[in-house]
């Protein structure tokens, strides 16, 4: 069945644009850059379309390339000395209005302060609902490392949340 599957590029863009864009957005924190990354990811998909064997493979491939491209973009920006998440307030003004809970917005801001590897693991866990095994496969990292990133990321986030969100909730 997988051999007879013919990938339809336009359909793949339709199906996965939200996922690819959101991954890039949650990793970089820059809407414009996330859109650029999403475009690049889909163009790369177009170049590799012959190698895509099934819809699941397409989804896995897109997740993996989106994560790699986002990490590359962060690295490039870091080299140039631009802090992406520092500008989050300006860039995400519109985004926050879309969100149902202002608390979630605070959590996202806290998430932005985590180390990149922990953030990547948490984004795949909570945006894509992936298991640690699937995250390890997507990031090409050992399972133990991914589990450690998830645990440490959550612990760090919890610690930060305890300090900052309590004040926020009290304020609300």
């Amino acid at each position, binding site marked *: 069945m997988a051999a007879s599957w013919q990938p339809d590029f336009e359909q793949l863009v339709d199906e996965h644009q939200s996922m690819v864009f959101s991954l890039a957005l949650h990793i970089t924190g820059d809407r414009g850059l996330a859109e650029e990354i999403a475009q690049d990811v889909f163009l790369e998909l177009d170049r590799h379309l012959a190698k895509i064997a099934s819809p699941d493979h397409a989804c896995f491939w897109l997740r993996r390339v989106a994560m790699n491209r986002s990490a590359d973009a962060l690295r490039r920006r870091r080299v140039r000395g631009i802090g992406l998440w520092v500008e989050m307030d300006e860039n995400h003004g519109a985004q926050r209005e879309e969100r149902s809970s202002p608390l979630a917005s605070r959590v996202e801001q806290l998430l932005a302060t985590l180390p990149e590897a922990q953030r990547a693991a948490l984004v795949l866990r909570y945006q894509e609902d992936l298991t640690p095994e699937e995250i390890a496969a997507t990031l090409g990292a050992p399972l133990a490392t991914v589990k450690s990133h998830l645990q440490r990321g959550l612990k760090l986030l*919890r610690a930060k949340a305890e300090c900052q969100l309590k004040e926020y909730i009290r304020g609300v």
Partner: protein
Amino acid sequence: MDGLERELSEALARRPAPPSLKHKVMERRSRERAQRRQQRMEWFERLAASLVLAGVAGGAVIGHYAVERRKGEEAKQQVFTALRIANHALEQMNAQLKQQDRNLR
């Protein structure tokens, strides 16, 4: 899943892609494809030109060798002719000497 994880799931929910994203992707895709097609054409043109050039150069080399070989053959024939003439002259001289020798006896 505790409260923080629930908030995290909510914070990290998928966002809709910008409406222009698909259009931009399709536009860039057709531009890239045209560019790739053009590059492939240029590559074929270069390959064809290289093949023609290699053919011309190969032909010139082969032609040059053929001319050289023909010249060599001509020179060889001339040498053989010269040898034949010399041989003939020597035979004549030999016959005359033999005749003189017989006359002297």
